[in-house]
Every structure is written in structure tokens, then in C-alpha cells.
């Protein structure tokens, strides 16, 4: 039973305010959003920050839902994904982890590297380019969700791929949202 306490301590140490592990559907997405909203509401966070957090959450959660089918094709039982939010003094972090096929890593890596190489205006242009030129049926929407997350965050996306087996890796993503608006 000690792991309950350990987990509790680990979450407290990392300032985790919400965590979900398991299968993700649009219904879980909605429930998680409702919980997070209530949480932010009671913390009295500024509405601009709340909206950014909400936006990033939606994209991160729907990414997991969209790609969960890929993982289900595998037979190793590691279908589940994880989603969490932490709230430190200066920033919120929205984090997700889900299995992806190793063969899809190069494309995803390329998209993320491109996003991180761009500044604010570059991201705006990329966003417009993708929205104009892709159709909704294209799975993953050519990374539009990641572009949006990067824009809302205003910081670089943090990511890593942890190898699970020959077929899958665990894709970890962290998006930070500063609590205090930059005074430019």
C-alpha cells in the first residue's frame, strides 16, 4: 500500500493538480476539461491564462484520442495514455504521454522541430498555411494542434520519445504556460 503514499508525495512534490491515466475518449476529454475548469475557477486564475490552459488542454487531449487507435493495433497491452497538469509558482505545465508507433516518430519529430525553430510570426504563418491547405480528414491535421499549443504557450514545446519495444515508443509532451504575462 505504500505506493499510494509515494504517489501522493510524488504528485505533491511536482505540484501536480490533476492527473488521469487510462483510455482516452471524447467523453473523458470533456470530464477532464470540466474538472480542470473548476479547479482553475476556484484558484481565481486570470481569465486570459485560463483560456490558454483550456486551449492547450483541448489540443493535447484530442491528440491522444486521435492517436489512440494506432496504439490499439498493438498487442502489448500498453494502450493507455497519461495526462497531467502541474501548477508551479510561475507557470502551469500541461503534460501528456501516449504510445506511438516507432515508424511515425521521424514525421512527428520533424513537425515539432520545425515548430520550435519558429518565432511568433513564423508560427502564425505556419498556422495559416496549414489551415488553408489541409482537409479535416487528414489524420493529425499536419500538426496544427502542436502549432496552436506552441502559439498559446509562447514557449518552446518540450518533448521526448521513450522506447517501449520494437513497435512503440512513449511520446511525452510538455507545454508551459507562464502565469505572469510578459511585459514587452
Amino acid at each position: 500500500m505504500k505506493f499510494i503514499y509515494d504517489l501522493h508525495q510524488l504528485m505533491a512534490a511536482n505540484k501536480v493538480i490533476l492527473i488521469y491515466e487510462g483510455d482516452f475518449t471524447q467523453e473523458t476529454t470533456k470530464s477532464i476539461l470540466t474538472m480542470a475548469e473548476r479547479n482553475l475557477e476556484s484558484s481565481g486564475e486570470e481569465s486570459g491564462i485560463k483560456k490558454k490552459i483550456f486551449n492547450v488542454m483541448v489540443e493535447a487531449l484530442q491528440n491522444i484520442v486521435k492517436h489512440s487507435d494506432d496504439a490499439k493495433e498493438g498487442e502489448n497491452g500498453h494502450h493507455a495514455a497519461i495526462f497531467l497538469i502541474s501548477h508551479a509558482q510561475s507557470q502551469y505545465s500541461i503534460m501528456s504521454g501516449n504510445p506511438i508507433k516507432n515508424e511515425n516518430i521521424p514525421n512527428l519529430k520533424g513537425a515539432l522541430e520545425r515548430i520550435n525553430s519558429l518565432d511568433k510570426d513564423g508560427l502564425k504563418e505556419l498556422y495559416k498555411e496549414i489551415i488553408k491547405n489541409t482537409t479535416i480528414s487528414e489524420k493529425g491535421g499536419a500538426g496544427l494542434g502542436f502549432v496552436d499549443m506552441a502559439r498559446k504557450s509562447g514557449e518552446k514545446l518540450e518533448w521526448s520519445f521513450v522506447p517501449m519495444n520494437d513497435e512503440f515508443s512513449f511520446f511525452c509532451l510538455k507545454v508551459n504556460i507562464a502565469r505572469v504575462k510578459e511585459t514587452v
Partner: protein
Amino acid sequence: MEILNLEGTADTPKIILDKGNKIFEISGRSLPEDSAEFYKPVLEWIANYAKQPNPATEFVFKLEYFNTSSSKLILDVLSALEDIEGMKIEWCYMEDDEDMEEAGKEFSELVEIPFEYRAN
């Protein structure tokens, strides 16, 4: 012409398209999983309206949040409105919501329709 009236839900916007009463409005949250499916009746309604539109149309967007898959469909809606004579977009946002204001400006750069902005 038939009125399209969709009640808003936790993840879909409220939509009223009413030619007779001159109400054309999409408001609330738009984050459905399948945006294409959700916006299909809207695009169909607009295609019909385009055949015999009112002399002037003020189409109101009053969105609180939208996800990226909705953003593509919003662009599709705007593109469908683009060819209608006398079309004007009213883009409403909460006063402190710079992201929503910016989103409206970006859409306006992608279509040839006059946009008016209103902070509530």
C-alpha cells in the same frame, strides 16, 4: 427557408441561422471530436441560403473557445459566406481575450469579407 437551430453543448456551439428574422449566429464553445460532421448541416444551410440571400447579411461569431479542428471548419464556413453579396462578419470576443481577437484578424486575412470586431 428553414431555420437551423442547434442548442449549444459542452463541446459544441449554439447555432442559429434564420433568414426571415435575419439572425445568423455561432456562439459558445466549439471543440467537437468530429468537426467536419458537426459543421456539415451548417455548410449545407449556407449553400442553400447562397441561392437566395437577403440583400445584406450580418453573420455573427461569438466564440469562447474553439479547437484547431473547428478552426478549419470555421474557415470553410467563412469561405462559403465569401461569395454571398452583402456579407459582413461581426467577430465578437471577450474584452481581455487577445487570442480570440487575434484569431478573428487571422481569419479576416484568409477570406475576402469585411470584418467588424466587437469586444464585449
